[in-house]
């Protein structure tokens, strides 16, 4: 696509989309939304980038190695937080029982492990969405 209007609008819109996605992930525990929706939003912003600027440029920005690390990393973060629960004399994925600080109700830094897990899910979902799209649209000959 070589449309200057589309390109400039995309350039303009994508930061806002991503910012909104990050906002949704970070505020997942105090407002509607969370890791899934925020991650999907970030993923779709990257899909939009791919649609407008092509796969090659998108893959330079978000290479295969990065996505591999992000995919494993998202779950490993989740597992690590869960295992901390065991280490801190609780059960797997314990929150209050393992002694994580819950913070003040309704503030951004509250909920113990919940925001951390939300971030892990968000990373995972975003990277999954974009990788799946790249793999699906890439032609055999490349």
């Amino acid at each position, binding site marked *: 696509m070589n449309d200057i209007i589309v390109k400039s609008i995309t350039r303009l819109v994508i930061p806002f989309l991503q910012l909104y996605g990050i906002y*949704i992930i970070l505020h997942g525990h105090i407002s*509607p*939304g*969370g890791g*899934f*929706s925020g991650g*999907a*939003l970030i*993923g*779709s912003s990257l*899909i939009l980038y791919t649609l407008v600027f092509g796969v090659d440029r998108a893959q330079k920005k978000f290479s295969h190695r990065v996505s591999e690390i992000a995919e494993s990393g998202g779950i490993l973060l989740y597992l690590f937080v869960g295992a901390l629960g065991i280490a801190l004399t609780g059960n797997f994925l314990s929150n209050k029982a393992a002694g994580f600080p819950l913070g003040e109700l309704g503030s951004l830094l509250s909920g113990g492990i919940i925001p951390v897990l939300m971030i892990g899910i968000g990373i995972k979902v975003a990277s999954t*969405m974009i990788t*799946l*799209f790249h793999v*699906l*649209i890439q*032609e055999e000959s490349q």
Partner: protein
Amino acid sequence: MIVLNVMIVIFLIVAALAIERTKDLLSAVIIFSVYSLMMSVLWLILKTPDVALTEAAIGAGVTSILFIAVISRTQRYEK
């Protein structure tokens, strides 16, 4: 609110039937996207904003794009 609810339900059923009938897969995907979007509106009416947000982003957005990507690589018309 109940009127809106009933209208959306009827719309959803009609959209689902339209997806079933349409031979052009691209149109079917677009109807499917609208269907997902209406579904998320309906879920918003039923006071589940989290699910509505996720469905709008994943169901209507990502799924439709993936469908279109695959249709562009395969056939557009159902026989």
